[in-house]
């Protein structure tokens, strides 16, 4: 593998991590939104507070990681994507800001009225943000971003691939979140809540799976290069993802939550990797390859040093955080 490709892989690992970890945080918004009125929805919302509270900021940093790696390693493609996809990026950004701020505000709200206001902002922006991020992915993957930037502000992301990308992103996030929350609910001894979440997660999973299949036909016309890759080089990953998704559904159905979680992660991680492998060697499909877009060699090497350090420092710390949140002491419900 050449240096550029190694850096691109490191960048893309960030995309995968963000899709899985950040995605699950966004998806929680779906269950928050559909939890019902303030009394009926209370257990779900408390669970969501408890389950994403300690981790959402760390998970969010994956996005920063991706942006920084992108602009440092592949500067021109970054500028091209930013100027072309300004609208969905700004909308995603708006969602990210509203989601984070109102989540923190809601947790400390005094009255039910405040909690409802911030809660609905949190939930709606959490559901919508992945749509815009997914549409950005669709734009990159279907060759909507010209190498020189300043592509069409609207059609670049309002096209079949982007719209399906967005819808699938929303569904995937919700599905992941559903699996995670169901597991958390069960581990916290909240059987009834787990049952409710399980039913809804199953529905979301089936709907998302169906959307993915429905997307294949329009994508074939709209994003031929991507489809070539997905059915060629990345076919194994796509199959793995389908398998993982199906396995998650079966495991959820049989209430094997602990096993459903890794299966869901596998499904999402492999579909995202599939996208990456599918559009290889392009960074902007049909416009700019990874090699062409790469910045200075010394900078790429420097980035790998940063990535290695991150692996050594962030890795263990993140592991410790996740282990704590999954431990017994952290699972009981009251917050301190």
């Amino acid at each position, binding site marked *: 593998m050449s240096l550029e490709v190694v850096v691109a892989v490191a960048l893309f690992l960030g995309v995968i991590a963000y899709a899985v970890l950040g995605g699950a945080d966004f998806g929680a918004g779906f269950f928050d939104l559909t939890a019902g009125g303030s009394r009926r929805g*209370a257990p779900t919302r*408390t669970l969501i507070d408890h389950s994403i509270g*300690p*981790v959402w*900021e*760390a998970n*969010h940093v994956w*996005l*920063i*990681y991706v942006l*920084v790696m992108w*602009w*440092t*390693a592949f*500067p021109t493609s*970054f*500028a091209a994507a*930013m*100027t072309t996809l*300004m609208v969905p990026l*700004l909308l995603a*950004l*708006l969602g990210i*800001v*509203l989601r*984070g*701020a*109102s989540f*923190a*505000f*809601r*947790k*400390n*709200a*005094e009255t*039910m009225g*405040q*909690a409802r206001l*911030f*809660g609905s902002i949190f939930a709606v922006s959490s559901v919508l943000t992945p749509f815009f991020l997914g549409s950005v992915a669709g734009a990159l993957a279907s060759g909507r971003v010209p190498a020189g*930037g*300043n592509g069409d502000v609207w059609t670049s992301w309002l096209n079949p691939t982007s719209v399906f990308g967005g819808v699938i992103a929303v569904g995937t996030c919700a599905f992941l979140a559903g699996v995670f929350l169901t597991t958390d609910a069960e581990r916290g001894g909240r059987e009834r809540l787990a049952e409710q979440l399980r039913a809804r997660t199953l529905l979301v999973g089936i709907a998302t799976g169906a959307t993915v299949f429905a997307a294949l036909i329009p994508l074939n016309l709209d994003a031929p290069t991507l489809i070539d890759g997905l059915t060629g080089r990345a076919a194994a990953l796509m199959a793995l993802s389908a398998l993982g998704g199906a396995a998650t559904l079966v495991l959820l159905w049989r209430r094997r939550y602990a096993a459903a979680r890794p299966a869901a992660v596998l499904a999402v991680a492999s579909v995202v990797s599939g996208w990456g492998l599918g559009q290889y060697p392009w960074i902007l499909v049909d416009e700019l390859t990874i090699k062409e877009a790469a*910045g200075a060699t*010394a*900078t*790429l090497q*420097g*980035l790998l040093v940063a990535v290695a*350090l991150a692996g050594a*420092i*962030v890795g263990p*710390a993140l592991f*410790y*955080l996740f282990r*704590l949140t999954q431990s017994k*002491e952290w699972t009981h*419900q*009251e*917050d*301190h």
Partner: protein
Amino acid sequence: MLASGIALHLSDVAASAPDPAGLLPARNQMALSLGWHIILACFGVAFPAIIFVMHLRGIRKNDQVALDLAKKWAKVSAVLFAIGAVSGTVLSFEMGLLWPGLMGTYGDVLGLPFAFEGLAFFVEAIFLGIYLYGWGRIPPKRHVLMVLPMAVTGIIGTYCVLAVNAWMNVPTGFNVIDGEITDIQPWKVLFNAHAFSQFAHMWVAAYMVVGFSIAGVYAVGMLRGRRDRHHRLGFIVPFIFATIAAVIQPFVGHLLGLGLGERQPAKLAAFELAETTTDGPSPLRLGGVIIDGEVKGALDIPYLGSIISQNSLTKPVPGLDTIPIEDQPPINLTHLAFQSMVGIGTMLMLAVLVYWFMRWRGTDLIGNRWFLRGAAIAGPLAVVAMEAGWIATEVGRQPWIVYGVMRTTEAAGDYTSSLWLLYGASVVLYGGMTIGAAIILRSMARRWRAGEGDLPSPYGPKRATASKGEQR
């Protein structure tokens, strides 16, 4: 130096084109989002160490008041860090959205420090989660240590961001040959010569902002007659941090300013409101503006300008007359911002010195209402000084985004004046976040005063029992 060579090479390229319509809104947008974020960033940088000291005191001396304060501060920091994190994300996007010319051209030159900053932020976010949710769940002696990594990452993160800003002021680590950027040395950017002094100044500024702001909250409480130990301790610990910072800041700032005349003569001329070069030593001009080429309303102190900025009794400050008009920054804004920063900094230093002097003489001014009033506004003043410092640095560098190498017009995107819509929306968004944060923080304080400990969420199932008081 390399940079000045580049400056000669490129300075006349884009000089005469009129500003594109999208430039002014882009600059306002950046100023708003950066100016807002930097306040929260200060809390991310400086609050952890202050919380650590309080928490440690609580554990060491078995001091319930201190523990209580640390716990409350942790909850406050959770709110502040959340909006700090999302407003920082805005900046990452805006770098590309608003300044594609900069990022597309120099992304691989200036990117490495950002990568390390991202790393620092990662560690910070992780330990924030661990610390906040670790109360009562991790053994206390280990738990208190979880806040320390955040103080360290605050240093690293600040350094990295300021390294980029210092690079924009004094670009190095690359070469321009026939318009092509070559010979890129990212480590040289990360460790550029100007980075450390800019970092030191900003890092100390963060402690001033946070120390004075937190102390000010308790000063207000004391003004309203709440003079219990809780308030006195809550005041003095952050006030000590602020004191140390306020006393060293003028020196750090002075060191930062040394050599500015060589680095960025136009900026220095603007700082000093030097319209023309004087024969012999320049005065220090306090206040004043330039209208139609004439200095109005300034108070001149002879010699002092040369002494402070040139370290000399004779060498004048080179005036704007030595600088081509197209390379001059907006002089009045730069001058007033710079002097507000220095003025406030000097005042705050004197004020804390008076406090400790009186205390040493046996009078604790905490009992004095005027002192408390002053302490209450010291936080906002420090914020103003910090914002003014950024305005001085950034506006004073104009018309360059990368000094001598790239003009801000070249960096801006190809947008029309419709970018003002984005700016308008951002004003609403940031206004909303400010109001939201104010409502929430005030209501937290109110409930704490009313004796509620844990602040359960209103929809929480345990609300009824938990609000009866401390359970643990």
